């Protein structure tokens, strides 16, 4: 029952990602990671015995602990990735604002000079 429920949730999740891509609210570049996450989740739900073996090999007694641990690591890495992306965008934003401001000053200067030249 849990297996079917998990599979259902993951399929809905993947479908949602595809829909977001189709509507243009999520670009393919950033959807790839989520699609891979969904695919790995579906594979894990289908082959749950494999997940149990992997959990025990990694030293986890309870498989769910392993799943929570893996999810936590995934979200920490994702947060770090998003923070770096945010910093990059912030820097680009600053550069753009600085460029616009300097160009606006130059434009004002050219306008004034043009006015003077044309009387």
């Amino acid at each position: 029952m849990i297996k079917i429920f998990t599979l259902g949730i993951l399929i809905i999740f993947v479908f949602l990602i595809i829909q977001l891509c189709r509507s243009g609210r999520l670009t393919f570049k950033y959807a790839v990671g989520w699609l891979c996450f969904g695919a790995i989740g579906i594979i894990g739900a289908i082959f749950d015995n494999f997940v149990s073996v992997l959990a025990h090999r990694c030293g986890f007694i309870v498989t769910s602990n392993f799943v929570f641990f893996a999810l936590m690591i995934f979200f920490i890495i994702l947060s770090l990735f998003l923070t770096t992306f945010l910093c990059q965008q912030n820097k680009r934003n600053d550069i753009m604002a600085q460029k616009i401001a300097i160009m606006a000053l130059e434009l004002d200067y050219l306008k004034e000079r043009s006015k003077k030249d044309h009387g």
Partner: protein
Amino acid sequence: MTVNVKTIVIIPALNEEDSITEVIKDIQALQIADIIVVDDGSTDNTALAAKKAGARVVSLPFNLGIGAAVQTGYKYARRYGYDIAVQVDADGQHDVQYLRPLIAPILANERDVVIGSRFLPPFSGYRSSFIRRLGIHFFTRLISLLTGVQVTDPTSGFRACNQAMINVFADDYPSDFPEPEAIVEAKNASARIGEVAVVMHPRLTGHSSIRYLKTGYYMIKVTFAIFLRTIQQKNKKGHPL
């Protein structure tokens, strides 16, 4: 003063309409430098007051913070081929009569960056709050320990630099509370850093940008920033504006 040395004074300003005119007039009276005011998204008439006073004004479309505002000035200085850039606060704290002594070591090619210090004799009588003095002392020691640079006033925003450092700062300039970190950046770029004694006055109007921030946060943030700046990779390619 050397005639063919192009000097520019960069004044970052945020809501300083009451003091900016006087600061600009004082600098104009010296007749040694062009002035660029970087209006960092002011909500008052700072830009208009600066224009009326005869300065060129770069108006940022929104508030980017003091570091980005100063960096805009450096980008402008690089774009127009200035040889020396001087930072002056818009609040009237910096006595611009010391502009000539500040740029003299750069003109003599003895220094690449010169910081105006409140704590050097014969003008070492500047008094600030205990906690502020403690912070300045802490950063003095930290910068000395990490870089070997001996400065007495690492938080002073009254400073000058030559063309090589204009290029460095135009490419990359620290963001929040940038003064101590900029010294480390200059040292990373192998700059010769010096200080000259200057007088600083109480603010004409307004309030300090760090007044409402917890001093502890400021100390921790700048300390981390200095550590990170010390180990930062060199030869970063900047944006060519």
